[in-house]
């Protein structure tokens, strides 16, 4: 019996974010006639997929007890350099493939820089990524002279704007990566170690887990997801602004992770939660536009819904 009750409690806790999403979904359908249109739903999904993909990587970092504030700047830097690479190689199909590979590697490299300073230098993740946030942005401004990166390829936008079976490509990637990362988190050693490290580093070390490597990999993963997102975004816009691409992505990504039920203190979390968290944020933004809330009061509504979405989970659990 005890186990049952424990399980019952656990399930509710697990489904808290879903519950919040359902409530928001119902409210939105009532509030706006446009909300349930297929096109609108697809819009929302596509809109959330950029920060959503980053949030997936961020989930690993946060569960491992870290944080990454540099993802926004990293998005701009990677997106910009991918466009430069693309233009350099001529903009054809091969150029696109090379540029994408380059972008993904670059993302993992930038993530690894964060991870190495954090683990080898033993500096708090907040400080390291606050620093690299400034550094990555500054590089971006420098290479572009604070201007825009413009791709000359006609093919490149197909990727970010394209559809497959009626669903936008970014959405496929978002859900695909979420499924993959969900398996990694729940059913592989690495996933288990991430939770262990985030929950109690000392014990993890004692259990002969290579704590530094686990954390380093988490930052590499988030670098990878940033690269995916940067590629999708730069391809969708076929350009990228050096000064404001990716600004505040870190807040959106972290908010999605936490609304999704991952603990800020590390140790526990879920990928499905992060997906739901990202969608909740997307619906909020969509509804603010759809309902024409006064620009001055949008912040209030958004803030209230974010806090409310987490409060509702607590009350249920």
């Amino acid at each position, binding site marked *: 019996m*005890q*186990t049952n*009750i*424990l*399980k019952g409690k*656990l399930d509710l806790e697990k489904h808290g974010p879903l519950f919040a999403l359902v409530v928001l979904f119902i409210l939105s359908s009532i509030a706006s006639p446009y909300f349930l249109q297929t096109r609108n739903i697809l819009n929302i999904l596509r809109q959330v997929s950029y920060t959503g993909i980053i949030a997936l990587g961020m989930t690993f970092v946060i569960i491992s007890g870290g944080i990454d504030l540099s993802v926004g700047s990293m998005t701009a830097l990677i997106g910009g350099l991918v466009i430069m690479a693309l233009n350099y190689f001529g903009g054809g199909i091969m150029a696109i493939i090379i540029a994408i590979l380059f972008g993904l590697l670059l993302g993992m490299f930038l993530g690894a820089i964060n991870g190495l300073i954090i683990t080898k230098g033993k500096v708090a993740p907040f400080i390291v990524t606050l620093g690299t946030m400034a550094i990555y942005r500054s590089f971006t401004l420098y290479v572009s002279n604070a201007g825009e990166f413009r791709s000359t390829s006609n093919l490149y936008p197909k990727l970010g704007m394209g559809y497959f079976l009626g669903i936008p490509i970014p959405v496929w990637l978002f859900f695909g990566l979420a499924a993959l990362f969900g*398996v990694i988190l729940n*059913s*592989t*050693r690495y996933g*288990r170690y991430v*939770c*262990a490290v*985030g*929950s*109690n580093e*000392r*014990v*993890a*070390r*004692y*259990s*002969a*887990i*290579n704590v530094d490597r686990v954390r380093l990999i988490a930052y590499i993963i988030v670098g990878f997801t940033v690269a995916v997102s940067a590629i999708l975004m730069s391809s969708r816009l076929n350009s990228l602004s050096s000064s404001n691409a990716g600004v505040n992505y870190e807040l959106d990504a972290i908010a999605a992770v936490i609304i999704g039920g991952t603990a800020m203190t590390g*140790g*526990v979390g879920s990928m499905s939660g992060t997906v739901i968290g990202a969608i909740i944020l997307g619906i909020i933004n969509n509804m603010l536009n759809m309902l024409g809330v006064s620009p001055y009061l949008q912040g209030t509504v958004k803030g209230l819904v974010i806090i409310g979405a987490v409060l509702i989970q607590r009350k249920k659990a």
Partner: protein
Amino acid sequence: MKPDQVLVKTVGISKSFSGVTVLDNINVEILQGEILGIIGENGAGKSTFIKILNGTYTPSEGRVFFAGSPVHIRDTSVAKRLGISTIPQEFNLINHLSVYENIFLGKELVKGNRLLDKQQMKEKTSELLRELDTDIPPDAKLQDLSVAQKQMVEIAKAIAYDSRLLIMDEPTTVLTQHEIDILFNLMQRLKEKGVTIIYISHKLREVKRICDRVIILRDGQFISLDPTDALDEQEMARRMVGRELTQIFPPKIQPQANAVLQVRNLSVSGLLHDISFDLRKGEILGFSGLIGAGRTELAEALIGIHPITSGQIMINGKTQVISSPIDAVNNGIAYLSEDRQGTGVLTSFDVASNVTLVSLNEYCKPLIDRKKEKAQTEEYIKAFNIRTPSTRTLLEYLSGGNQQKVSLAKSLDPKPEIFIIDEPTRGIDVNAKKEVYYFIHELVKTGISCILISSEMEEILGLCNRVVVMREGRVTGILEADEMSEAEIMFYATGLKEGA
């Protein structure tokens, strides 16, 4: 495998922390397939010694040979590869993970496709736990387990691994006789399979019973290594402390007739059912029971951690609502937690700040009077013989037993009227135990009343005026002084007898 083969040999092992030598030139040979006891006072260096063997610390000097060849146990993963596993003194378990995830942490079973084989891990966990005769579900979250259950998980974790050397650092401090018997059976079986076991304990009777040979350490020095047959408990204690030990239990004092604490039909949903008892002024009231009997829960209900669903608590005849530890302190109730690092002390605080944490108000005028704080702490250091370089040393640098003494001092400092002590002598040495018993004796002499929760039958019999026996969250019997015996208590604890 020859029984007399040497598995581990240490040559001139020394360890110092910041220039202080805590382990000095240890040369021992540990034989294949023996159970080797290590005893010594708190802070003697027992844990430090085994932490060198399992890679937590590297020695400042000296070398370790394993199975004949020199090894450099740089970290825990090297120890793991050599086949050394440890049941540490403090829990090394992850609260957010489930039981089976903890047991297989760092050595997960994977399927052909490299995904975790959860099914098999759960099955193996059930098997292991069945072998230990405990029925913890493999899926349960660790944070929902009691301290004793965690200890069983820790044991299962260590034996899940086919190790050649199994180190146990005070595994039985929170276990009752029943579990201890199970553990000893298991150790015997492992020994027959050729596993070498190092067993650290302050319970000399257990050491005598299970160990083949015993090492005695004092102040980081090697004192002796003898077959246990050659030593009796008195001799062990004498060598540990370096002088003769007198009578360990103080004489009992007759309590006054009036009850300071009356608990009536107290229930906590899912944990406690219909509990009633009286605590008289100046009494030491024992609480006995098996693991999971709910004694700790009762104590936590009394200090307002668990919300009471029905029933009343009366203090000096008046009904009181206690909904948090703050109310408890205001009503003169103090609690010594059995979970030292989980709820007892702050390891990142220094000794003095821990001691005065609950009673800090007494030291404020309005700024904290550090002199007074220091003076008071030094009194406890003297009274309990706490080994610490200073009152400002962080607790994480103290040995387990000395942390326990600080924890005791911390709960005592508010000068409670009712003192609930949960496993007070957990991990403290014979000599210090005696000091603690006499301290409690002095307390009750001044009219303080004690609830003593203990899994050590001796302690209950030697100290208590009466004993309440619990089983599965209920009181099954309350025994008066003349009815108290080990057998009688066990009857009630196992459910063979019932009714107060």
